């Protein structure tokens, strides 16, 4: 940590990690309801639990992204953040709004639109906070008068994420049209601009961790992000299957979503070659685990498992089954959870003024492997449940309720692997919160070796 205001990242990470922990509570509640019967049926039914589980994920991942940006931008632009105070106000309003949203769900205050359940006035607050954030970041870059490709990709991704939230503010009379535009936000976030953010953070981490000079790699960053959008924009069509839009979206969705894994594979190769060239010399091997792991798990969960059910002839049978949960869990974890945990693992020793080499104990690695094993098991549990559901319910014609009873063993497997995953999260949180951060910038600067390479 070379700039005092990089410390802003820490409170953002704290909020993100607390919400991550809370997300696990609601995840476990949800799986308990799959096992049933549900003693909380009339107090906290599945719909509320599910909305809170997914919304917490989105909120904490975005909080992490913003924290990461406050950490990365000063280094890349070689300056302090424009306004520290604005950054804290932003976090305060963001967190308060998040709490109101979650508590609101508990009392049935919801817009009831999947993943965009936030009530309309609170959506406006989200937009306002995003604007505060972007203003602060852009003023910082402007003040510095220099920017790098890495932060360009990162900040452009966040700016586009804010813009793409705007369709969520529109209310449509026609349910099909409302579905059509809902995916402009959801799909173009997670299979478009968020991948851009991931690529930006990945590039930053690879340069810092591998010590390979920038120019050679960064041109590939454009190729990766180019592939993301070339495949991803028209890939939106795979959400337009069977919802009442024109027929031509079917082949378009098939072809372009089949291309979507290319960018993810590109990211994994990008990381692999960076590591090979550098010889994995950086002392913070935990951050290295999360970074490389993120690219591999993304290629698996988002790429391969997305491809598995994206072709219209396959999706016709799997649409609306637990196959979607299989892909959803592994993709979000690999791409957005892991890249967040990578940047946090990388930044924490620096924020707390200790050497990466002196990271205490093996706790962090236990957290890593428990989460990997847990999520891999959960993915398998959802996959086997989804395959059985597709076969029994969609192909054989057995009723929904009877099918759900027959796939109970998979829910048991989901419970066990979910607990495994949660214990990994618990260890990560313990490891995170026991590192006491230092606010004294002079001390921080003296105690640290210079970064491996200049940006």
């Amino acid at each position, binding site marked *: 940590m070379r700039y005092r205001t990089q410390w802003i990242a820490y409170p953002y990470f704290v909020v993100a990690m607390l919400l991550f922990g809370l997300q696990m509570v609601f995840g476990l509640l949800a799986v308990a309801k*799959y096992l*049933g*019967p*549900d003693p909380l*049926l009339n107090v906290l*039914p*599945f*719909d*509320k639990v*599910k*909305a809170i589980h997914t919304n917490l994920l989105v909120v904490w991942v975005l909080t992490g992204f913003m924290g990461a940006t406050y950490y990365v931008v000063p280094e890349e632009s070689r300056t302090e953040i424009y306004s520290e105070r604005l950054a804290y106000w932003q976090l305060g309003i963001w967190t308060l709004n998040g709490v109101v949203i979650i508590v609101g769900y508990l009392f*049935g205050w*919801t*817009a*009831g*639109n*999947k993943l965009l359940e936030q009530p309309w006035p609170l959506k406006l607050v989200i937009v306002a906070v995003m604007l505060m954030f972007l203003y602060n970041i852009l003023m910082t870059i402007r003040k510095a008068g220099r920017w790098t490709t890495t932060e360009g990709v990162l900040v452009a991704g966040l700016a586009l994420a804010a813009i793409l939230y705007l369709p969520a503010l529109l209310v449509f009379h*026609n*349910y*099909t*049209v409302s*579905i059509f535009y809902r995916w402009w936000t959801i799909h173009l976030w997670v299979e478009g601009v968020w991948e851009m953010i991931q690529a930006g953070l990945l590039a930053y981490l690879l340069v810092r961790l591998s010590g390979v000079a920038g120019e050679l790699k960064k*041109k590939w*960053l*454009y*190729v990766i*992000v*180019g*592939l993301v*959008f*070339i495949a991803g*924009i*028209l890939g*939106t069509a795979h959400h337009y*299957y*069977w*919802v*009442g*839009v*024109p*027929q*031509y*979206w079917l082949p*378009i969705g098939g072809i372009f979503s089949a291309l979507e894994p290319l960018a993810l594979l590109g990211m994994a190769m990008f990381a692999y070659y960076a590591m090979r060239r550098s010889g994995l010399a950086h002392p913070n091997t935990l951050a290295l685990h999360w970074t490389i792991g993120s690219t591999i798990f993304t290629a698996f969960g988002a790429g391969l498992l997305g491809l598995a059910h994206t072709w219209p002839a396959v999706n*016709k049978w799997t*649409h*609306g*089954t637990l196959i*979607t949960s299989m892909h959803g869990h592994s993709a979000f974890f690999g791409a957005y959870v892991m890249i967040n945990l990578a940047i946090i693992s990388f930044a924490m020793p620096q924020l707390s003024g200790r050497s990466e080499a002196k990271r205490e104990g093996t706790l962090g690695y236990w957290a890593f492997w428990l989460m990997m094993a847990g999520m891999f098991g959960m993915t398998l549990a959802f996959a086997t449940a989804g395959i059985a559901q597709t076969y029994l*319910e*969609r192909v*054989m*014609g*057995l*009723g*929904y*309720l*009877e099918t*759900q*009873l027959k796939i109970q063993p998979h829910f048991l497997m989901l419970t066990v692997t979910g607990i495994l995953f949660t214990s990994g999260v618990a260890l990560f949180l313990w490891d995170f919160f026991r590192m006491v951060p230092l606010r004294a910038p002079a001390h921080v600067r003296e105690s640290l070796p210079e970064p491996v390479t200049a940006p």
Partner: protein
Amino acid sequence: MTKRHTRLFFIGGTLLFALVFLALTVDSHRQFDTLTNADRITPDVAAGKDVWHRKNCINCHTLLGEGAYYAPDLTKITQQRGEAYLRAFLQNPSQFYSEQVHRRLMPNPNLAEDEITQVIAFLDWVSNIDNQGWPPRPILVSGGSLRGAEAVSQPGAAASNEPIALGEALFRQTPPGCFACHSTAAGVALAGPSLAGIAARAAARVDSASYTGAARDAEGYIRESIEQPHAYLVPGTMYSAGGRSFMPDNYRETLTQDQIAQLVAYLMTLQ
């Protein structure tokens, strides 16, 4: 390739495909109204959509295959269950399914009567959206067991042009969707009574003292049940309330006399 080239690839590629996407969006807007029967979005349908959102239905159910996966898909539900049944169900879901048996139950959504009317109107509008024929075969809420469940065989063409074969094929088509509520396996009760042995049962029933309809024989009884489901109510709170059967009572209008005759001919073979 230099950085300039790759940047051009990124910006050019993104812009190009964004433009294609926008053009297709404009074209889709030209077709939305026809594909979704937008002229049939009555005030009730619009209000029903708001009820659907307000009650957070999508975070358990799926509609058009989108939503959570914790409760049945409702895309075609109004073609499988009549309004009377859906109304009674929404008034008190726990009357129809047991949490002990199915391990999950819908909490009472606490809807007012007009909200129920609206949400049913909305679901009925959704069921008529032209969505490329999805689902490829009906998704049943509850389908008893695999043993003898007739929904197993592929719906569609009749084996021959005999009335019995035509009636059997019609039984499995949606609409009318008879199979979605009636199994033909003994002891497998879905939303409606099992029709196994209906011909023999009908003959016995018209002679019994509790029979309230006007039919004289088994054939007449089956025809009457299709055309006037309220004439005689099969005992059971799952099947009727307030003297009204949950079975749709508009088959006399939606089916032709020939079709009804075919259904009767088929059902008469279930001895």
